[in-house]
């Protein structure tokens, strides 16, 4: 098992190298002069020459690539053109917000999706099943930004129940500790005995979580349903029933444990895809995370930031895959015991 994990970790390196290479050449080989593109139409020749020198664009391509690699290895992703800050530092400050939202959305989507999928499967071809699967179809076809706006309209504007955006009530003059606000809220709950930060953090998370989690929720529910239906046909389910195991246990232990195998894979893929959804969600909900930052960077043609953001997201994606892989082998003894 440990060996398996170590092997997978080593295998990550070429994948990440591939991503970095791709990101580098994507920008380097993009049509037009990056310096001109970055500075816009009205820049003069001297300004462009200066930026080209700064960015090392006059060196041969292969040397640029080598330099880029050696910097990335040291977590040096260059300076943002718009803010002048180190890209790696900016990412370091912003990623907790994104991760927090992504995790919430995934927990929301996985727990509810599996529950709905199982219920649909055992109540198959009843109105419960039709309603759930109809809802799931509606869920996958809904654009994230539109859903976000509808949620804001209903819950913030009309009902005035939840905030329209941000991560924390601004009147709290809150200084983050870990930058994961839920964790910060918990820390403060224990240290200062006040729950208001935690409550506010959660209130701010609810709508973006739903907006971001709805598509994965729908996909997970549908995968769970079909996987469950297949597993429930298996002989070993009949065996468990014939031995008098209670129906609840047959479903939630004997069947679900097997049905989860494909679901875990789907959860992993959805988690990775979530980050692209995060760009839209963060923009709609003014969520100060990587997504919104990347959206701004793309608009400003801030190439170092875009490159850094893509590398970060890709590494995140690859790591999620690793976790999925490990989870998969925990659930499936055939792989674990190889």
């Amino acid at each position, binding site marked *: 098992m440990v060996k398996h994990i170590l092997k997978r970790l080593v295998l990550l390196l070429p994948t990440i190298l591939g991503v970095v290479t791709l990101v580098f050449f994507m920008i380097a080989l993009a049509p037009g002069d990056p310096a001109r593109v970055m500075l816009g139409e009205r820049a003069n020749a001297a300004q462009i020459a200066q930026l080209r020198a700064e960015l090392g664009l006059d060196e041969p391509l292969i040397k640029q690539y080598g330099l880029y690699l050696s910097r990335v290895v040291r977590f040096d992703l260059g300076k943002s053109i718009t803010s002048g800050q180190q890209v790696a530092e900016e990412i370091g400050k912003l990623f907790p917000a994104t991760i927090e939202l992504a995790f919430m959305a995934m927990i929301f989507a996985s727990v509810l999706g599996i529950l709905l999928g199982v219920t649909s499967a055992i109540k198959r071809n009843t109105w419960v099943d039709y309603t759930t699967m109809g809802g799931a179809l509606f869920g996958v076809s809904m654009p994230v930004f539109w859903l976000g706006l509808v949620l804001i309209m209903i819950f913030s504007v009309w009902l005035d129940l939840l905030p329209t955006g941000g991560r924390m009530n601004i009147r709290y003059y809150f200084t983050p500790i870990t930058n994961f606000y839920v964790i910060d809220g918990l820390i403060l709950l224990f240290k200062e005995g006040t729950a208001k930060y935690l409550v506010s953090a959660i209130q701010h998370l609810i709508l973006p979580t739903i907006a971001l989690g709805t598509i994965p929720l729908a996909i997970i529910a549908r995968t769970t349903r079909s996987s469950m239906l297949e597993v429930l046909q*298996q*002989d*070993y389910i*009949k*065996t*468990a*029933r*014939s*031995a*008098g*195991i*209670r*129906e609840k*246990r047959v479903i939630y232990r*004997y069947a679900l*444990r*097997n049905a989860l195998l494909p679901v875990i894979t789907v959860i992993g893929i959805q988690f990775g895809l979530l980050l692209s959804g995060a760009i839209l969600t963060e923009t709609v909900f003014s969520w100060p995370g990587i997504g919104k930052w990347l959206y701004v960077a793309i608009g400003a043609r801030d190439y170092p930031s875009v490159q850094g953001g893509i590398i970060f997201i890709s590494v995140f994606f690859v790591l999620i895959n690793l976790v999925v892989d490990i989870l998969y082998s925990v*659930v*499936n*003894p*055939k792989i674990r*015991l190889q």
Partner: protein
Amino acid sequence: METVKQETLLEIDNLNFSFKTQRGLVRAVRDLSITIKKGETLTLVGESGCGKSVTAHAINQLNPMPPGRVDSGRILFNGIDLLQLKKGEIEKMRGTQISMIFQEPMTALNPVFTVGSQIADVFMTHQGMGKDEAMARAVELFHLVKIPAPERRIHAYPHQLSGGMRQRAMIAMALASPEPGLMIADEPTTALDVTIQAQILDLLGDLKQQIDMSILLITHDMGVVAEMADRVVVMYAGRKVEESDVNSIFNDPRHPYTLGLLNSLPSNPKYKQAKRLEAITGTVPDLLTIGDGCPFANRCAYATDICRSSFPSMSEINKDHSVWCHNHESVKREKAQ
């Protein structure tokens, strides 16, 4: 067999079971009556699709319902009609008084749990044991079904065991019941190779000596019948066509279909005499379009007009042997020649 006044354990009384499918109503079991006495091994024989498993699953209600449906009949177990029980009540019967072994040891055990924990779960469900005690009991059962190195094997996953071992583990699981009354074994050896088959049958025979239980053994192999059965019920296309104690049916088979089954036994030259019966030709009728006549008529060398229009009533050959065939006398005459 000689104990005439044995108590009845299970009585299936005029069972009709059908499946509602997209193509129409499949009448999988028709007017079937079977009685199993305490301590008896009854074998249910017949070719694929004749309704053996549906019959067995009707007992502990494992047929999918819907599409399955009991049209009529009763299934009395120790005098209680199982078909009248509520869902929770039948759940309690399963694994306590009625247990089951399946055909495919490959697929009948859950791949993501160790065999030991699956058996322990049965103990924990029915007898409220803790995990450790249940595991200890599972080890005992592994001893009983002669699995070598049980302390180690108990922690194996199904895919780590051979087919024979898996079937032994299945049997152990079926024995994890507090008061084994009826063990239903649905073709327990069909998927195994010949030497392992013999071992598993021996094991079942041994266990029956040690544990006071009845066995409903489903098979399509007359060799298995000869080895295991006290009594035999032959089914064809959902109907019972012959019923007998094991000696009488081998000595004096009366249904042309039974005769065909015996003829296909390689080790039985005795039945080779009736040349035209060596192999059963033709195919099983479609249960959807089957009429009211004898379902075997279209393949039967003895068939006469009446066979196609009405299903025969029972003819008693002797007190332990009955047949449902219009022409069973001709079967007897031909064999005598």
